[in-house]
Each structure stands twice: as structure tokens, then as C-alpha cells.
């Protein structure tokens, strides 16, 4: 590679040590914004996706509209590129001219992420619910447990257990997709790197941002794999 004709230029504009050292602290503090957005969207996604999964799982004829809504929700939101929804909601809703704290791109960017991710996570939870054998519900119901208690104490704990690895994948994906909000305003890490790139006419800040992401996501990935392996062992012993 060092023999490639453009190597020196690339080295200078992507792997410039001085620029990396200079920009790294600011990138790191911008990453805190990513973490914050991640931390408040994750619980919202959890709650919303659980509601949608339960809605799609209802069997009662009277609740058919709920079921239909759940199906439509997951179908529509999984079919639109995330970035498109971030644009549409992130620019569109503040455009309504809402009063100050409510026109923030932080809020509406987060809403876009929550909506899309809930659709995916709802499908994972639903698959988990369906993987719990019906004899478990029969046993719970035969003891007199209500339908909601059966779901809460018997079915859902088992559903989540089987889906932990899949859910961890979405945790990682969400953490990275927070960077998509850079397109609508918040000065998070990608946006900060972009600012430095323009300022210094150098791409090294991007590499710095990539390093920061790797430092966080690789441990999570390893942990997810560890959980997966442990689960496999439990099943076989």
C-alpha cells in the first residue's frame, strides 16, 4: 500500500497524528451527545416495541383493530430508510412552528429513531413470544392465572431470554444510527468531525470518530456473543 501513488496524500489527510490528537477531546465530548440520545431512546423503544408486539399478538376478535395497527406499523416503518424518516420527521415537524423547546431536532430526530427501531424490535419480541410453547400458557392458565399475568410472568420472561442476542444486535445498531441525526442539526460526533474536516481540510477527525465508535461497540458485540454462547451451553446441558 505504501507504494501506491496516492499513499502520501492519503496518509496525510486521513492519518494525521497531530490533527487526531488535537480534535480527539472535542470528538469525545461530542460523543456524549450520541450516548445521551441513545440512552433516552433505548427505553422508549423498549416500551413502544413491547406494546406493538403485544398488540400484534392479541387473539380476541374485539381487538382486531389493534392487531391491524400493529401489523401496519411494522410493515410501513420497516420499509422506509431510516435516514429518510429522520429527514421527514426531523425537518418536517419543527417546520410546524412549534414553540421553542418542542421544535428541537434532538426531540424529533430521537422520535424518528424510536419509531423505526420500535418496528424492528417489536418483531423480535413477537418472534420471542411465539417461540414459547403453548403448553406454558396452558399450564399458567390452568393454575388460574389471568391472561395478562400469564404473559407477564410466564411468557415474556422466556421470550426475552431467547431473544437477548437479537436484541443486543439492535442495541449496537441503534448506537451507530444515532449518528444519522448529524444530518438534521445536533452537534454529535459525526457532525463535530464534519466541522473539523471542513475547518482543517483533513479527514483524520472521521478516523477519530470511527475509533471512538469501535471502542464502544466492540465490547458490546463481544458481550452479545458471550451471551449467545452461554445460552447455547445452557440448552445443551
Amino acid at each position, binding site marked *: 500500500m505504501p507504494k501506491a501513488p496516492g499513499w502520501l496524500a492519503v496518509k496525510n489527510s486521513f492519518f494525521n497524528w497531530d490533527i487526531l490528537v488535537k480534535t480527539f477531546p472535542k470528538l469525545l465530548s461530542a460523543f456524549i451527545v450520541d450516548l445521551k440520545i441513545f440512552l433516552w431512546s433505548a427505553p422508549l423503544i423498549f416500551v413502544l416495541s413491547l406494546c406493538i408486539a403485544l398488540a400484534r399478538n392479541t387473539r380476541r376478535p374485539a381487538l382486531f383493530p389493534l392487531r391491524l395497527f400493529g401489523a401496519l406499523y411494522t410493515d410501513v416503518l420497516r420499509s422506509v430508510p431510516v435516514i429518510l424518516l429522520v429527514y421527514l420527521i426531523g425537518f418536517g415537524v419543527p417546520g410546524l412552528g412549534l414553540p421553542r423547546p418542542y421544535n428541537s431536532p434532538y426531540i424529533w430526530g430521537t422520535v424518528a429513531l424510536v419509531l423505526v427501531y420500535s418496528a424492528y424490535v417489536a418483531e423480535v419480541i413477537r418472534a420471542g413470544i411465539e417461540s414459547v410453547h403453548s*403448553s*406454558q400458557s*396452558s*399450564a*399458567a*392458565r*390452568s*393454575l*388460574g*392465572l*389471568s391472561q395478562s*399475568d400469564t404473559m407477564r*410472568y*410466564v411468557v415474556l*420472561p*422466556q421470550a426475552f*431470554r431467547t431473544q437477548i442476542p437479537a436484541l443486543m444486535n439492535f442495541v449496537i445498531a441503534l448506537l451507530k444510527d444515532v449518528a444519522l441525526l448529524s444530518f438534521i442539526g445536533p452537534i454529535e460526533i459525526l457532525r463535530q468531525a464534519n466541522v473539523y474536516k471542513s475547518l482543517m481540510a483533513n479527514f483524520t477527525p472521521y478516523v477519530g470518530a470511527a475509533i471512538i465508535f469501535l471502542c464502544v461497540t466492540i465490547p458490546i458485540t463481544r458481550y452479545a456473543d458471550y451471551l449467545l454462547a452461554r445460552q447455547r451451553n*445452557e440448552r445443551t446441558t
Partner: protein
Amino acid sequence: MKSKLQLKSVSKSFGTVVVIDNLSLDVATGELVCLIGASGSGKSTLLRCINLLEPIDGGEIWLDDFDIAEPSLDPDPIRRRIGLVFQSFNLFPHLNVMANITLAPRRVLGTGVAEAQAHAMELLERFGLADKAKAYPDHLSGGQQQRVAIVRTLAMQPELLLLDEITSALDPELVGEVLDVVRALKDSQMTMLLATHEMAFAREVADRVCFLDEGRLVESGLPSEVFTAPREKRTREFLARVLS
């Protein structure tokens, strides 16, 4: 003696397949009735219907003085009075033995934790499982799992116990310990309806034996009558097949 359970002309179909056909049966308080019959004769479905896990298509199911098959009734308060033990145990794998047993008393009866655990411990001791209270179902033998499943049902203090081929999924050497539990329950006057393939056991413990074939109650009587001098041709054929 007064009837605990009365089935009156119960019918149940799955699609076009008739699983239970106009079946009537009485179980007196404290009585142990054994249901025998080939696989697919409707024994399990009948027990699931009595526990209201399956709605029936016709007939009445009386528990004491109420028709519990009435569709307008809320099934939950009725189910808690009837215990059902399954062939495949169906313990909750994510909960330990103690939590398996105390879940329903706590959630359904509103029993306090300490009281529910004390009662569970009492039952576990009675059936020689006290040292397994903290174990998870996966770490128990089949026989132990089935005994825990029975204890879990007993913790709800059911008035009627339905046992659905509870030894069919067990290795032969583990069958005895589970049948001992049933013997102990019979001694304590528990009203039981037991579907079984264990003919020797049915003959030993049953107050009455009912032979089911294609969803119909073909013959019922004392074990000594049904096993030694069956009146019906189909009963004779079935017994010849399973006892040979």
C-alpha cells in the same frame, strides 16, 4: 355420595373431527376415577375441557352446583378450583421450584410471600422434595419434575385434580415415585380424575374405571368388573391389546 363433577352429554369437535361424543360422567367427592382408552380416544381433550382450556360445543359441565361450561362465566376463578397436571410437566423453566409453586397462590389468591413459601415448603417436604426448592426444572429428573408439577397444582388447594397421563413421558424407573404421590393423595381424600395407560395402577387405586373409545364412554364400573369381566366387545379388545 354427592357429585363433585358432573358431565352431561358433553360434545367437542375439532373442525369435522368429533373428539368427544355425547359423554356423561359423574365423579363423587373423594372419588378417584380412571379414564382408560387408546391414544386419541379423547381422554386428554376431556380433561382440558373440564379445566376450560378448550370450550365445549355441547352439553354441561357441573362443578358442585354450577354449570361451569356456561360461556358467559369468567373461567379464571373456576380454573383455580380445578388442578390439571400435564403429561409433559410444563414447569416454568425460568423459575426455580419454589417460584414455580408460589407464582399462582401469590398472583391469583393474593397470598403473601412468606405464607406462600411456607405452604410450598410444607408440600415439598410431604413429597420428599424439600432439598429441591431452589433448583431449576432443567436440573431435576423427570420424576422430580412431575412431582413438583403436582405440588404446584396442589398449592392452589384445588377441589378437583385432573391428571393427564402424568407418567407417560417418564422413564420406567421414575414412574413409581409419581404414582406414590397419587396414592398419597387418594389417602387424603382428594377427588381425582386420572387419564392413564398404567392399567395395573388403575386397577389398584381406582374407585371406578371408565373406558373411552372414539370420544364415547363405552363402559364404566369397578376396576374388578371392567378388568376381569368387561361387558363390551371394544373394551375386551382394548384390554387384550394393552395387557398382552
